[in-house]
């Protein structure tokens, strides 16, 4: 009995050590991949056409999804917040409160999570499939730098497109909030937005906007890393797409937490 308990403990300990080792190995490979990205980023020539194509795919093709999510986000937040504010007799604060919540936190994080699901998994699956079907090798042997062509363009496109998608989502969410306010009230469009603009400060907008670049970079680099290093054939394609979403989403929360901490050092 005691021998079996001891061997169970040994096995658990061995598993724990192997998991920790795996985590640090993965982290070091991701760091190496990221450094490789920065090295290739400044090498000429820049693959401009591919960058524009990826920006279109990542940006324009995500607009409907991000727009619908943003609208629901604004509407639901307004409907949920109203009863509490009514209790405190602060219903008139509804537009301002919703706007600050959306722009500082909910808009960027929810949009980034939606993009981690749509864009991150797409990049992960596409690159993994290219790897499995030897398309990346084919690029390499034809003298084209596949890292520069595939990874640099996609990571740059996500880094620049996610902030634009967040701005779009915030705008639609505010419109959704305006609709939400008017479900049980009568506030004009001008009044609603003048209250929103009046309460929003540079300190609300700037940190929220800056962190979205990091969200975009994280989604792009994780998607590319998982796809580019995929193996195990077609099984690997699914795994890469899946782990790209999981890790990118996790990283979005980690970056958000760090951004809040850093912002709180400068903004009172």
């Amino acid at each position, binding site marked *: 009995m005691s021998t079996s308990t001891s061997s169970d403990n040994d096995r658990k300990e061995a598993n724990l050590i192997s998991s920790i080792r795996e985590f640090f190995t993965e982290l070091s490979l991701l760091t190496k991949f990221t450094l490789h990205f920065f090295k290739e980023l400044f090498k000429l020539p820049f693959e401009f056409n591919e960058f524009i194509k990826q920006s279109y795919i990542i940006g324009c093709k995500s607009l409907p999804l991000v727009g619908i999510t943003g609208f629901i986000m604004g509407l639901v937040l307004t409907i949920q917040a109203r009863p509490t504010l009514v209790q405190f007799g602060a219903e008139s604060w509804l537009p301002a409160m919703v706007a600050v919540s959306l722009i500082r936190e909910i808009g960027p994080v929810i949009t980034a999570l939606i993009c981690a699901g749509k864009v991150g998994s797409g990049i992960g699956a*596409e690159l993994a499939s*290219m790897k499995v*079907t*030897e*398309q990346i*090798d*084919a*690029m*390499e*042997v*034809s*003298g*084209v*730098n596949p890292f520069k062509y595939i990874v640099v363009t996609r990571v740059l496109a996500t880094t620049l497109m996610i902030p634009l998608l967040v701005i779009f989502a915030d705008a639609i969410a505010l419109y959704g909030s305006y609709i939400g306010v008017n479900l049980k009230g009568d506030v004009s469009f001008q009044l609603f937005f003048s209250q929103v603009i009046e309460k929003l400060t540079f300190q609300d907008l700037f940190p929220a906007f800056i962190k979205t670049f990091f969200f975009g970079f994280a989604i792009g680099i994780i998607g590319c890393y998982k796809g580019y290093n995929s193996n195990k054939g077609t099984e690997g394609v699914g795994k890469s797409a899946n782990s790209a979403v999981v890790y990118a989403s996790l990283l979005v929360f980690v970056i958000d937490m760090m951004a809040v901490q850093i912002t709180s050092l400068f903004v009172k």
Partner: protein
Amino acid sequence: MGATEKITTLNGSLEIKHLKKSFNENVVLDDISLKLAKGENIVILGKSGSGKSVLIKCIVKLITADEGEIILFDKNISDLSSDELNTMRKKIGFLFQSGALYDSMSVRENLEFPLRNKKDLSQEEINTLVEESLADVGLLDVIDKMPSELSGGMRKRLGLARTMILKPEIMLYDEPTTGLDPITSKEISKLILEVQKKNNTSSIIITHDMECAKITSNRIMVLKDGLFATEGTYKELEKSEDEWVRSFFE
């Protein structure tokens, strides 16, 4: 018909010396040496998993060898910087077993892709090159289609056209007729020979298809346990006393 005559002038552009490659404990290539003569077609035979594909991937440094030297156009590839290696790779064509066509690009874009770094070519010249290459493999009429709309044989031919567009001096074929019916396989084999004669390239062809080996080879090398067990022309090996070698021909 065929390329059965043995080429004796060894003024080649590829030489492999004592190449070794292992994956963990598994020794795949153990002391491989070969010399490819100008205009020569070498066919490499061997059982599945004997390291044939690993060998040609080592030549273009898709896989790095553990030991040994690969001399390409008088330069050891392990001494080359990544830019030099990319320049060198443009002189080598590699036809992948799957064709490795870029499925997000049309047939035209697939062929234009290897030319993207040739800044001295105008769009008109690129169009001419693309159309010529497609005409060589009889695929001019599918120029605006996507790879997914093509049959297996067409995909192989397109892969060949894309590889040949840079006018490589050495061609490496990884099982070019795998998955094709005997008639299409024969067509591809003849096409390989035609293209090789037109451009005077040297080739290494990995295949299990003996009809392909018969049509394309000047010399056949048989890989066994990480070493070249024997070599000779098709006719010589067909009559080999070694039963294992002869089994490939039966």
